[in-house]
């Protein structure tokens, strides 16, 4: 939690068109900051600017520029910034990251305090590990988006090795409410199962986060042995792969 006193303001400059994992890089950065419990972040889109490649980008009424400058700002304690920096560098890619000391006069107040997730670093995955299965319903929502999508984003922000979502055709869970596939194409109340494989310590450190997010569901851990964990090799420091 951010407290009054000295802190760092981090400013990230990116092109709007920059992509990573087939998504806009600035959205990935924002997701990362959000799920890692940063007190707040703001994204602004410039109307003109240029970067290291010396291409001048400007908004024009006639020709819409799709690569306007994007600025992401957040304020955190220096320790938290240091902790977030390695992953931020990876996500920001060719963009710029700058920090300046600031004095926080009044810390932001959350309506409901969120738990501070523990710092987790990516490690090579091999040998004894845990398989985590999370059971939720397709119709569950979390802050206005499907719960299972929010869980996948939060798993990614916590650097989990990978996640897969399965849709069941029939089932019931904690509430005893039956979820069933209907013959109607617009029915979205199937039982869903998310499976994640990672180190036991990392999985256990994630449990408070998932407890906070899921209002009704079930979680199951079992032992597994990881034989192989590989990823597609992408050029220039691309992030880890998506297998599980």
């Amino acid at each position, binding site marked *: 939690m951010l407290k009054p006193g000295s802190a760092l303001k981090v400013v990230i400059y990116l092109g709007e068109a920059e992509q990573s994992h087939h998504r806009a890089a600035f959205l990935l950065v924002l997701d990362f900051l959000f799920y890692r419990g940063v007190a707040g972040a703001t994204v602004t889109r410039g109307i003109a600017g240029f970067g290291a490649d010396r291409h001048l980008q400007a908004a024009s009424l006639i020709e819409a520029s799709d690569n306007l400058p994007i600025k992401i700002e957040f304020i955190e304690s220096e320790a938290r910034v240091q902790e977030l920096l390695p992953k931020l560098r990876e996500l920001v890619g060719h963009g710029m990251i700058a920090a300046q000391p600031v004095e926080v006069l009044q810390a932001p107040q959350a309506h409901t305090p969120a738990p501070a997730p523990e710092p987790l670093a990516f490690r090579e995955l091999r040998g004894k590990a845990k398989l985590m299965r999370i059971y939720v319903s397709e119709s569950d929502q979390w802050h206005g988006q499907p719960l299972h999508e929010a869980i996948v984003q939060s798993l990614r922000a916590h650097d989990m090795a990978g996640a897969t979502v399965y849709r069941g055709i029939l089932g*019931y869970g904690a509430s005893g409410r039956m979820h069933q596939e209907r013959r109607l194409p617009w029915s979205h109340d199937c*039982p869903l199962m998310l499976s994640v494989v990672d180190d036991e310590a990392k999985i256990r450190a994630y*449990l408070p986060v998932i407890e906070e997010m899921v*209002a009704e569901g*079930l979680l*199951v*851990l*079992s032992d597994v042995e990881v034989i192989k964990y590989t990823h597609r090799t992408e050029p220039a420091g691309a992030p880890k792969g998506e297998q599980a």
Partner: protein
Amino acid sequence: MTPLRPAQMVRLHFGENDLYAGRPLYEAVVAACRDEGIAGVTVYRGIEGFGASTLLHRPSLFGRSADAPIVVTLVDVEEKVQQVLPHLKALFDGSLDGGLIAILEVEMLRLGHA
């Protein structure tokens, strides 16, 4: 944080067309689990597979008539699982089609019920 409890997971593998007393076997399995108060049950339809009869289960391109592989997983504490197991075996015997039942040792956590 709520502590995790030792539990068992049962996996049942069979076909979508397997019947028990005239209705889909997976529905009978879910109903039996519900009657015994099992914590959670999920039925999955696979996209391809084969079983003890070595017949390939594969959903057809046209409609839902073909025999896709079905996996039912259920989770609860050992006591409850052992209680429902004879019922599940009876359903398998009664369906005449057979299948596979496997048990895993797991840990369980009910979410949102702290």
